[in-house]
């Protein structure tokens, strides 16, 4: 699946934001044009792909968000909208009016929610998010980004019950942004985080909520007992991946994921299909892993990593680590580091 950033405008200022370099917090931002929307739909059709995720910034701030949503649906795409829930009132009203156009599982929202006590909300955020969840609750999968080891999830279970959100909680960890300061979780904190997450077992079970992991969690930070509980609760083995998200910016530039947005950035127009894009970024990630297998020393010999059931943590951690090292890596990686502005890593070509 590809992600299309409808706009790089955002109303929030989350302390852990790893998309910051791609966003324009103030001002009008840059929005996807209709011409490019048609191009993306054509590109996905050519790729045999029928799913598209719409991101921002806040995608609902695109002035023609509802129209674009309906267009992509008319092109036969199944849509997932990643939102903060902070859409303009007029957009929410229009969206509500057009919901009948989306049947079955053709539209889903993933709403990234912040703990109002640990993460101070933006101006007007609680009221706006409440309005969004009230209107679209059953269409919304809650999501939460962990950026501190003492995170709290109680408020999410409240919201799930109050608004009838889907009983699947998407959990992400805040990742480092190579070459830029950002608040993130360090590898040394993962075990504590795994333990804290599993301490919410009674709430997950009582509310029958299934946790799911976004990229970057390493499997080894969970005990066998914790993994067993997760598998029993979810009915399937948890995934510990770091795949290319394939983010398409409003200007049709393309990158692996937000934290690695300056790493081998390309244009969508350089590729014929999504499979070509995936191959390109998979190869770059393989180059990284050839240099550093994972975020821990133990990743070198880890059988789960070798067999592919764990990615060895996020590639953004590997890249961040290389930044502080001497220039002894593969030329491709040195060039990539030069791209993210690391001093002393001049491009060699």
């Amino acid at each position, binding site marked *: 699946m590809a992600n299309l950033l409808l706009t790089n405008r955002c109303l929030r200022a989350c302390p852990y934001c790893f998309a910051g370099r791609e966003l324009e917090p103030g001002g009008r931002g840059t929005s996807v044009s*209709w*011409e490019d929307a*048609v191009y993306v*739909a*054509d590109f996905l*059709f*050519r790729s045999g792909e029928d799913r598209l995720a719409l991101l921002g910034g806040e995608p609902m701030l695109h002035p*023609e968000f*509802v*129209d*674009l949503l*309906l*267009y992509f*649906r*008319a*092109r*036969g795409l199944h849509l997932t909208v990643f939102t903060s829930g902070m859409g303009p009132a007029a957009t929410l009203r*229009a969206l509500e009016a*057009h919901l009948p*156009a989306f049947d079955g599982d053709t539209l889903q929202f993933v709403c990234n929610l912040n703990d109002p006590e640990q993460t101070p909300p933006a101006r007007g955020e609680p009221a706006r998010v409440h309005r969004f969840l009230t209107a679209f609750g059953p269409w919304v999968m809650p999501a939460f980004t962990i950026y501190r080891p003492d995170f709290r999830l109680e408020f999410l279970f409240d919201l799930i019950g109050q608004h009838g959100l889907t009983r699947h909680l998407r959990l992400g960890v805040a990742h480092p942004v190579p070459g830029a300061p950002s608040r993130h979780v360090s590898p040394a904190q993962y075990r504590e985080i795994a333990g804290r997450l599993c301490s919410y077992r009674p709430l997950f079970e009582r509310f029958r909520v299934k946790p799911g992991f976004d990229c970057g969690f390493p499997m080894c930070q969970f005990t066998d007992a914790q993994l067993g509980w997760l598998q029993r609760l979810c009915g399937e083995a948890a995934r510990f991946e770091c795949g290319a998200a394939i983010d398409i910016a409003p200007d049709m530039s393309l990158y692996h994921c937000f934290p690695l947005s300056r790493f081998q950035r390309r244009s969508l127009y350089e590729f014929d299909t999504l499979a070509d894009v995936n191959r390109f970024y998979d190869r770059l990630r393989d180059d990284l892993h050839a240099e550093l297998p994972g975020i821990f020393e133990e990743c070198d010999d880890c059988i789960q990593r070798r067999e592919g059931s764990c990615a060895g943590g996020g590639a953004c951690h590997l890249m961040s680590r290389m930044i502080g090292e001497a220039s002894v890596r593969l030329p491709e990686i040195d060039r990539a580091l030069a791209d993210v502005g690391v001093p002393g890593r001049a491009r060699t070509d």
Partner: protein
Amino acid sequence: MPLPTLVCPDAPGLIERLHGRTLAVRVDEPEAIAGAARGVRSSDNELCCVICDALRPLADLDLRDDWDGVPIALGVPEAGRFRDLAPSIPRLRDLDLRVYLAADRPDNLVALRLLSSLGVPCCATFAGGAPDWAALTDLMTYALLASVPHAPIDPFEHIADHYEPPFATEWGATCFADPRCYLHLDEEGRVALARSELLAGVVIAEDVADIADEADLVSHPALVERAVRRLRLFEQDHPCARCPGWRVCLGTLADSLDTAPGCAAFFTEMLDVIDQRRDQRSRDREPVKWRP
């Protein structure tokens, strides 16, 4: 030259006077489309299509059930908001209909691309002011080179299909403006070479009966004059006479060159795009099934 199709108003008296002709009936209101088609089909003439220039956006029109089976050329000032248009897309695809939008409005260029991408045939018209030539070039390139299935956008599709160098390509027929294909009648049966001329009272025959066979038309002074008018551009050393895009433009925009600079680059680029399209098509490609 076969006898042209007659573009006439939905006037029962006139249609009854005509026999064995092919008619494109013009109506003012979308609600009159089905009745006009029935009127022609119940006469001993053949229906080419019903032409309607609606004054409302496409999204605001009621695409009536009785439009089924009627070939319709539907002119609209704009498509309207996509959220209002979206419910009509399946119906637009099912109908035998082509949407006409003026190319001088930037939002119409976007609408043409959207409609095409959703399988709705459409046509850009050049009767109004100057288009954004760069945006039009982009649309033309999409229309002719996009590898994903989409509905045709005329006149680009027509030109690309019919362009045979070194011969010039007439494309006025896509919007009923080629007198070799379409003649225009008023309610009294007077005949003009173009709609604009009919509205201005410039007629070539006082009665359609005067144009009974091709011999009446092929040597008609007005038609000859029309061809000569183009050649005069060369005598006058008009910029069109030196334009590489002449073979697909034919000086169509010669009168508006001052207000529409950029047409030369557009039509010249079109020649390149047509060549690319032919190369593209000559390579054997698996046809991709349309999936809305």
